[in-house]
């Protein structure tokens, strides 16, 4: 075994430049694969972070149409509902359009009770509730723009025109790494107060109701009951689980996701071909050596171990380097994306997939040359010596 490993190791360095270039190719491919998978994961981050014990109720026709606030009491009275809150998408601009982060007008009293994953220090939450222009912002966004408590933040409204001034009263952190720390929450009452003056028709309306459930398993039944409450009204509702609601957003960009996923697998296929070529060249050059080994009495298993071992040593060591590089690359790319992708974490699944890809590359690249070397009769292999 020691001898086999020694041979494998030395064979790998017979053509250092060729091995190095192949290894660099694998490192780049595995890093790119990991990065693309992380991008796909980032797309699904909202889905992953969603709770199974919360429902989202929106206008049945489209999310862009609001719902009357007075639906709140009817929903709240349903059996199995623990808490109801509401939110409205604001869509303001901070200095420049490229400074994107999600902004919601929410019911401050209930929203943070329904979303315990947004951890707000109690004294900051108290200050927020007392200040009509108050804002609770995620620590990632606060860090990106250098905001601190007490700062005045002006946003230029797009859906709700005008300049809106907010005061940072609290900075929340996520309960875990899956929680979005880029959001910006302010009082819906503040929004409604201004809307009553500037656009009275839109007053007392909200975008979505957020419904907390006593038991997650009741979700389908309660969703049906909520929608039944408002059937045949001017604003019929569509209630779905938070996960289904988030998936609806992902579905809008599914084509892009499919392309990213396809490219990630294509990269692996390409490097597999490159690696297979490297191994085929190496095995062809050593055809006579394999014949000599077989002539001396070495078994097919030894020959397979020699070729497959070299292929795996190259792919797994380069793959490991590629996996290590995924982290700083993802950190850098995540930072460049800023608040566009609130969660840009390398998942354990991505690491396993990258390791699996490196293993697959090694096995596939080594199998054919190994099979050929074993199948070639000794006498034929020796003819290659002359």
């Amino acid at each position, binding site marked *: 075994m020691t*001898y086999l490993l*020694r*041979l494998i190791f*030395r*064979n790998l360095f*017979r053509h250092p430049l060729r091995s190095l270039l192949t290894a660099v190719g694998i490192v780049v491919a595995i890093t790119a694969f990991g990065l693309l998978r992380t991008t796909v994961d980032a797309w699904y981050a909202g889905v992953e972070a969603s709770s199974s014990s919360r429902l989202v109720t929106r206008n049945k026709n489209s999310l862009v149409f609001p719902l009357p606030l007075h639906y709140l009491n009817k929903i709240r009275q349903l059996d199995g509902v623990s808490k109801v809150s509401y939110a409205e998408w604001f869509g303001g601009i901070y200095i420049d359009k490229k400074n994107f982060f999600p902004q919601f007008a929410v019911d401050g009293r209930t929203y943070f009770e329904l979303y315990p994953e947004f951890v707000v220090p109690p004294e900051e939450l108290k200050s927020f509730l007392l200040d009509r222009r108050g804002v609770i912002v995620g620590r990632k966004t606060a860090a990106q723009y250098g905001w601190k408590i007490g700062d005045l933040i002006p946003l230029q409204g797009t859906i709700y025109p005008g300049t809106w001034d907010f005061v940072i009263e609290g900075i929340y952190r996520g309960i875990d790494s899956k929680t979005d720390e880029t959001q910006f929450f302010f009082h819906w009452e503040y929004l409604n107060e201004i809307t009553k003056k500037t656009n009275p028709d839109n007053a007392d309306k909200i975008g979505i109701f957020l419904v907390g459930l006593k038991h997650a398993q009741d979700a389908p039944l309660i969703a049906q009951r909520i929608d039944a409450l408002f059937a045949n009204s001017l604003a019929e509702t569509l209630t779905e689980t938070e996960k289904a609601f988030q998936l609806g957003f992902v579905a809008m960009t599914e084509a892009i996701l499919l392309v990213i996923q396809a490219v990630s697998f294509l990269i692996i296929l390409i490097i597999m071909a490159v690696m297979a070529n490297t191994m085929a060249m190496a095995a062809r050059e050593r055809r*006579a*050596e394999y014949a*000599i*080994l*077989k*002539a*001396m*009495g*070495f*078994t097919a298993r030894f020959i397979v171990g020699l070729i497959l071992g070299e292929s795996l040593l190259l792919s797994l060591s380069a793959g490991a380097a590629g996996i290590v590089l995924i982290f700083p690359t993802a950190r850098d790319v995540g930072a460049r994306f800023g608040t566009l992708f609130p969660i840009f974490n390398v998942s354990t699944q991505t690491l396993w997939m990258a390791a699996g890809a490196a293993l697959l590359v090694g096995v596939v690249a080594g199998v054919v040359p190994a099979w050929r070397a074993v199948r070639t*009769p*000794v*006498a034929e292999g*020796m003819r290659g*010596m*002359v």
Partner: protein
Amino acid sequence: MTPVVEIRGLCKSYRRGDQEVHVLMNLDLTIYEGSFVALMGPSGSGKSTLLNIIAGIDRPDSGELRIAGVDITTLSESALAQWRAENIGFVFQFYNLMPVLTAFENVELPLLLTSLSRRQRREHVEMVLDLVGLTDRSEHYPSQLSGGQQQRVAIARALVTDPTLIIADEPTGDLDRVSAHEILDLLASLNGSLGKTIVMVTHDQLAADHAHVIRHLDKGVLNDADQPAPAAV
């Protein structure tokens, strides 16, 4: 004298496209223990095929083939590999050493198939390297050795398992005249002092002259009758 190689009515043919090429035809040959036999003949006469069949790396189509009393045509591939490891030592025209292994490691290679301990393997390797006069080159890689030295390493590798038969395919074909002489003298001395049975294929009459018995092959047929045992030569 005990016969080591006993061949009777041996035939071998290959298919080349639609044609069947008869390489060896109804061949009889006996090689006795301790003899040094040279097989000569023009290219395509079948001498390398005959050598491969004797060495157990190719199989005949028909005929009897017994090496050291064993009918190797009946052995499975794995049993044949094991048999080769125990009975055959190979010396090739182009040495065919593993370029990534030192002279010592190359010679040690066949011993990995035995149950010898590491220490025993080292003793064996040192002994044969001494025998071929390369003790001071044991840590050199093949690329750091001359052609003659590489062939000596190959001979040491062939010898280290103390095989029944040493098979040498054009062992001096890639060497200059001086080195060729040294190698032939070495083979002759191994045959003479250690009693090793050697079967050598060569084009070179001067090389063949070092053997006790010279057999000529032409178009798959041995032209002359079996020679007597070495003692009678």
